[in-house]
């Protein structure tokens, strides 16, 4: 079943030092605090883009775009791109299930 998109992407913010993480850690790598608060990031800047043109053992594969993006507080994550946004573009983030995606911010 495909989940409906959810605005923003869930990140985990250390309750002690407030550093943000994605994916979810168990202990904060910076202060080793063990308590986290759920936060959401709504946008990020695209740093690099790749087009996956071939998938091993898959026939009839349709190219997919992925990107390394950076949030305002310096957190990096890999997202699926749903449009032609390129490096430098600010994109709106959304989630489908547990996967982060993005497209140009309107």
């Amino acid at each position, binding site marked *: 079943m495909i989940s409906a998109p959810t605005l923003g992407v869930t990140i985990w913010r250390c309750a002690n030092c407030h550093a943000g993480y994605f994916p979810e850690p168990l202990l904060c790598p910076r202060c080793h605090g063990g308590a986290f608060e759920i936060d959401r990031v709504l946008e990020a800047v695209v740093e690099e883009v790749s087009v*996956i*043109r071939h998938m091993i053992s898959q026939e009839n594969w349709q190219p997919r775009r992925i990107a390394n993006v950076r949030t305002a507080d310096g957190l990096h994550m*890999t997202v699926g791109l749903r449009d032609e946004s390129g490096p430098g573009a600010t994109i709106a983030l959304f989630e489908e299930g547990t996967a*982060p995606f993005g497209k140009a911010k309107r």
Partner: protein
Amino acid sequence: MFNNAAIIGVGQSPYTRRPEPGQTALHFMRDAVVAALQDAALDANDIQGMAVASFSLAPDSAVDLAWKLGLSLRWLAQDTNGGSAGMSMLGNALRTVEAGTAETVLILGGDATGLAGYAKVAANYNTATQKHLSPLGHGGPNGVYALVASRQIKKYGLLKSDYGHIAVAQRQWAAKNPHAVYRAPLTMGEYVGGPLVADLLWRFDCVSVVAGAQAIIVARPDRAPKGRPGVRVRAHRASYNYDNQLGDGLQTGISTFADELWREAGVRPDDIDVGSIYDDYPTMVLAQANDLGLIPGNDLARFCRVTIGEQRFPVNTWGGMLSAGQPGGHAGGLNGISEAVLQLQNRAGERQVNNARLAVTTGYGMTMYRYGGTAAAAILERVE
């Protein structure tokens, strides 16, 4: 310096893109074990310890493999560190022999996943991949390292052809390796004309999945076959989760220990005669070589064009995984160690590097999310 443990034998199975029906990873591993025992002039009953790494063992584990190989052991380990598993197991085996826990240790890696099996492994590599990458259609490690390559190209001003120098040079070496799957010459024109797999990785930047296995035997130096120079490990270091995936992936865990490695080995990067640098992608060959201090001034472009392109420094003389094939990262990493041993023992046949006395070997692996999280390196030396 490991004075009471040495590499005394190496062996491998044939590599193939298409195993025969019924031929499993275990069969390839058996063949590698038989070859290594023969090379070390040992009987299976002489083996007291074993370390193994494979994607293909489940639901079995290391002890099941010991059972199937008829090995009764006093030390046993199963390594899960992917492309650095070979180096990781080497370090553990050396320390185990030095400690006297076992006198002889068999190190083993092999896989025969096939393309479909490999795709399943890649999509379910860890929970981060399952939950956050696979749903994107990220293409497995190709997608991850396509982004790393983009960063490297941007940071160091590389050209597409720079990676090509590595692929072309390794194919030249592979032509002299009867075990390599791809031995036909590769020209720069063919390299740059290859199709894009994932921007900015082209076909010849990506390893081919093959079936095969590698084995190495570590033992007290006095167990080495007579009349053959021994291979001693002057220094060995490893790193696991060096930066919590918070960097850019252009440095590896090797950067955390390189100075210490050279200091303990008592040699310098320019003393090295031959290198086995883990080559899942040319991008990562450059990252590891740079971390090791093999690239003066961090000039990656010059290293590609001059050092590799003009054959001034021999790297991955077995053809690397780019040309010999990748029988899983575990065995692929072991292949680099085996090749270094053969070079140092003057047993590398047509690809022999003249008077090779010192070698550096590395492993790199476990693409946790944005790049690999494990790395290891060792300095190997011929002992007369």
